[in-house]
């Protein structure tokens, strides 16, 4: 029995070593990104994996200025925040009504939502832009509505799955006590949906924050309305004409990912739980 225990201990140590090597491999591009954000172009190319000779902040300050960091951060935040609020309100309402009313129409609507998850963005982006342009919505408001529309299917699906398991008797009790429809929803139903709401926020937030194509098509190179990803894209595009300006790209990428990494460190528990739940309920 004792040798068995020793064998298990050894096995555990070997597993730890393999997992640590994997963790180092996964983190190394990011560590390497950080180091190179403090170097000049020559130094980056000459010794890409070394520590910087001097920890100089000038490249980061330059990048903050070039990609209009704080402005872009604000735009990205507003777009992500508004889209998610829109998504939560609209999809939880719809899913709730669909589950509780149990009619043919609600079943058909739910099926439409599920089927729409198979439609890739590329297969409707050109007509979408055409339609929104004609409605005068080829701007930041239109962008938020588009995210609301694209995130809808999955969010309705997630809420629908959860609300099915919530007994309607709670709401009935509230109704008898004289609550109106909105009180019933926000005071009784919505607090129970907290877990699903976290999943909806995390999954959509990850996607909207980092999205490149939709802002590129809707906003393009319009000054003052670019998201972080767009600023990065245009910074690379315009300076890329004269070789690769790594002393701009590295610090620019570095500062654009800092907010997400900070958020991840603080909310890590919720993010991992949200993503896992979302994937399992699919």
């Amino acid at each position, binding site marked *: 029995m004792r040798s068995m225990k020793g064998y298990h201990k050894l096995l555990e140590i070997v597993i730890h070593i393999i997992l640590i090597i994997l963790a180092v491999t996964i983190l190394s591009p990011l560590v390497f990104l950080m180091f190179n954000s403090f170097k000049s172009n020559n130094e980056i190319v000459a010794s890409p994996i070394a520590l910087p000779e001097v920890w100089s902040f000038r490249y980061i300050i330059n990048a903050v200025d070039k990609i209009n960091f704080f402005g872009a951060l604000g735009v990205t935040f507003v777009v992500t925040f508004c889209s998610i609020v829109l998504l939560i309100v609209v999809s939880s309402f719809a899913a709730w009504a669909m589950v509780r009313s149990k009619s043919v129409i609600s079943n058909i609507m739910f099926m439409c939502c599920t089927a729409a998850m198979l439609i890739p*963005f590329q297969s*409707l*982006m*050109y007509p979408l832009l055409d339609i929104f342009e004609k409605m005068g919505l080829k701007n930041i408001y239109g962008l938020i509505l588009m995210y609301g529309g694209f995130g809808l299917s999955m969010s309705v699906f997630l809420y629908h799955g959860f609300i099915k398991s919530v007994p309607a008797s709670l709401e009935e009790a509230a109704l008898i006590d004289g609550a109106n429809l909105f009180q019933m929803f926000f005071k009784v139903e919505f607090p129970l949906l907290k877990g699903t709401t976290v999943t909806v926020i995390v999954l959509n937030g*990850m996607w909207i924050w980092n999205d*490149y194509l939709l802002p590129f098509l809707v906003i393009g190179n319009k000054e003052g309305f670019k998201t972080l990803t767009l600023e990065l*894209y245009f910074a690379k595009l315009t300076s890329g004409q004269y070789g690769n300006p790594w002393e701009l*790209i590295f610090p620019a*990428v570095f500062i654009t990912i800092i907010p997400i990494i900070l958020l991840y460190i603080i909310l890590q528990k919720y993010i991992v739980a949200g993503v896992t739940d979302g994937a399992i309920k699919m």
Partner: protein
Amino acid sequence: MDKYYKKRLVPLVLPAAILFVMVILLPFAVGVIYSFSGWRGTYFVGGEHFWDAFVGFKNYINVFKSQKFINAFTYTIAFTLVAAVSINIVSLLMALLSTALHKGAGLYRTIYFLPNLLGGLALGYIWQFIFEIVFSEIVFNENGLISIPFFCNMLQNKWKAMFALAILVTWQMAGYMMLIYTTGLNNIPKDLSEAAAIDGAGVWQRFKNITIPMLMSSFTIVFFLTLSRCFMLLDQNVALTDGNFSTRLLATQILRTTKDTNPPDYGLAQAQAVIFFILIAVVSLTQVAVTKKREVEL
């Protein structure tokens, strides 16, 4: 009570329905119709409305005659297969190893998931540098640590670039898929494996006859996510090679068709987009149907 909700169904669902019609249904329907017309983005060839510019299946025929589309099509399929296999192997290994531990698995999970939070474009730029400078000039060079010519200048060759993209995508997505496999593994009752061990089943036999069948519902999800994400990949492709050296994936091909043609042929791009939709629908539905059939109910 049902009646109470039925009466209020319409106003509650209305905002969602409007968004859905405006952003998904209408553009999708319009897109299918326009794919049969000479649409140029801002106008139609031969008239004011799409029916004046109706061209039948001409756009579709042109799509299949286009070398660029055929190339993007085969390239996407090859890439999806390679990437899906590598993501699944790496993430399953990560999950198996970390669930075997008594403690500390949470920390590894947190680290492995991190790249998933970051944008494909930003990561693509970092990896472009890694492939071009670190791999080619330092690590895998003749004078480097180990000389492996395959890993040098990966971005300047069509098929090597495909593997480069697969490495990037594996690095990014494996942590996510690992979370799903880990949950699946934790849901397998321990006594099944213990009973089999008492009956004399070895590690491999237990893995093959217990773990794999019990993990089928996780396979369904992971296959669905990896296949659809790789099939629709765009940002990483744009950032890494920008489609140069015939490395366009289908999503990039659709985006760039309007830049290739002058005047921009949106009808042609839209026909490609409709084919793209059909491909994704067929691939995902078949995959889900196949793996669902193998799921075990306890």
